[in-house]
């Protein structure tokens, strides 16, 4: 080990710029949000009186909170398993040798780099009820005779938002799964073949044990993302029809910036942060220990 260090001052100078920046932009917002959540902050009313937990209780008991939390949980319940299974299947496909693999591999990555606000715009047009591409294509193929109002009916709007979310979220899990699958020594598969194992057997006994940890990471990461993101549904449907696609994180935005009820917005943010913390601890438990710094 490298021990010729003159004290620790060099280390502190090196980490200072990055650490200070992150510290300022983490501790202050955290404290500020917590303080706000216990006060009534309203630009129209004078003073910022301390109101205890009343912001929290009024958020918890609001109709919109229950509704948007339910929508968010339904979204998680459908999209996270689908994303996980699809990412395993597509990664399995991408490690095969086939003509065109060199095109498909970067192609599956592209949705990842599209800004999510733009992803919402693209899918809003694709699913548009009167001139969208999906209606045009389906009617051209003779599948439908009347255009489907995808984004203005409760069930189809939920469906459309989930499709767009899955599309945008798939690339990152695919990369993780691909990395995990590439790391599996190929002689394991050769040996299994010699022993007469079926494709299902080699997936069950060789592939799966090697990607299990990654699958857990993907599930938790995607749950966290689905829980805190709202830009795609917001761009596509504005949360509608009614409240059918309203997400819990968007409720923070709407409380704070549309209704200017910063106290309630902060209380909801704290509630969401608390719930996220549970996911965070789960992530730490699941992450392979070599990623974290080993302390000797």
């Amino acid at each position, binding site marked *: 080990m*490298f021990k010729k260090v003159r004290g*620790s001052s*060099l*280390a*502190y100078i*090196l*980490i200072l*710029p*990055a*650490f200070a*920046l*992150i*510290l300022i*932009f*983490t501790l202050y*917002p955290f404290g*500020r*949000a917590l303080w706000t959540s216990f006060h009534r902050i309203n630009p129209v009313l004078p003073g910022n009186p301390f109101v205890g937990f009343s912001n929290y209780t009024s958020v918890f008991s609001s109709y919109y909170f229950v509704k948007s939390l339910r929508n968010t949980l339904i979204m998680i319940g459908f999209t996270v398993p689908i994303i996980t299974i699809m990412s395993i*299947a*597509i990664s399995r496909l991408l490690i095969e040798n*086939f003509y*065109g*693999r060199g095109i*498909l*591999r*970067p*192609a599956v*990555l*592209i*949705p990842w*780099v599209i*800004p999510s*606000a*733009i992803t919402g*715009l*693209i899918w809003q*047009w*694709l699913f548009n009820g009167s*001139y969208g591409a999906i*209606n045009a294509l389906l*009617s051209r193929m003779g599948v439908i005779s009347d255009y489907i109002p995808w984004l203005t009916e409760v069930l189809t709007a939920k469906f459309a938002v989930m499709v767009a979310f899955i*599309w945008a979220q798939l690339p990152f899990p695919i*990369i993780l799964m691909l990395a995990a699958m*590439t*790391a599996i020594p190929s002689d394991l598969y050769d040996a299994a073949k010699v022993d007469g194992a079926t494709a299902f057997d080699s997936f069950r006994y060789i592939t799966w044990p090697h990607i299990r940890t990654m699958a857990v990471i993907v599930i938790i990461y995607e749950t*966290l993302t689905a*829980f805190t993101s*709202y*830009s795609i549904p917001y*761009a596509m449907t504005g949360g509608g029809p009614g409240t059918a696609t309203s997400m819990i994180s*968007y409720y*923070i*935005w709407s409380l*704070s*910036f549309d209704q200017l009820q910063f106290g309630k917005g902060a209380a909801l*943010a704290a509630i*969401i*942060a608390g719930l*996220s913390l549970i996911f965070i601890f789960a992530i730490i438990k699941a992450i392979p220990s070599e990623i974290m*710094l080993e302390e000797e």
Partner: protein
Amino acid sequence: MGGENWKRVIVYISAVLVFLFTFGPFVGVFLASIVPETALITRPPAWFSKGFTLANYRYIFTGDIPKGFATKGTARSRVSQEALQIPRTLANSFIIAFGTMLVNLIFGSMAAFAYSRLRFPGRGETFMFILLSRLIPLVALAVPYYLIIQTLGLLDTFWSLIMIHSVLTLPFTILILTVYFRGIPEDLEDQALVDGCNQFQMFLRVIIPLSLPSLVAAALFSFMLSYSEFLFGLLISSTTSTKPISVVLSSLSNNPDVSISLLNSSIIVAIIPSIILAIVVWRFVIQDLILGALKG
């Protein structure tokens, strides 16, 4: 042998399906950007009946109003001056993303060097803090971030967005650079020190050249995240002199004076850099760094 053939068939069918799902939306958006508005909104759909035109692209970059604008009735092309903001805001997005990338490379590699090579009190704790800071939901930080930027007098400046985007990307940069730096053999550094280099020279001449792939990775990821970011761009930037393109596109989509084909042309202009980036990320980062490192 029959089994092998069936496998080929399944591989190719699923490859085509995956390609259609991930890339199909872009094909739709691109087609809609080069056909006249009238072809898009007729029923039954007749996208290819009216020829192709690049008029929308010409309008975005030169301000020449498309010919379809003169058509009478609902089918005429609608244009808005707002679309003319695209070239300027595209440049803004690049400036912000480039600044974020530089901050990440300089501050990130400094911190990562300290965490990978030096022992100092608080090393594990500060590293953990940096990693965990990123897991707080963004929307919960919006108001406090706005207040910090306001206090610093940096509203509507490039600096503020570069700063915020750096806070969001530095944890990831520091993580991947630390992991990578740790993999560089320390003999090389000892050799450099014996040859009379000081620690700083050693860092510049040994560590930096050897870790070029991971630096490229960190640079591209931070660029990409910054380019995609929407929420803080919306909050902090109020004029076209600093607005990122994602914000302009989202307001274009709500502008009734913008035709479908003009909006789709704008989307294509905005995502071309992302698509190029995806190909570069795949070629130089994932293929070589992640998959290559695991195989080797």
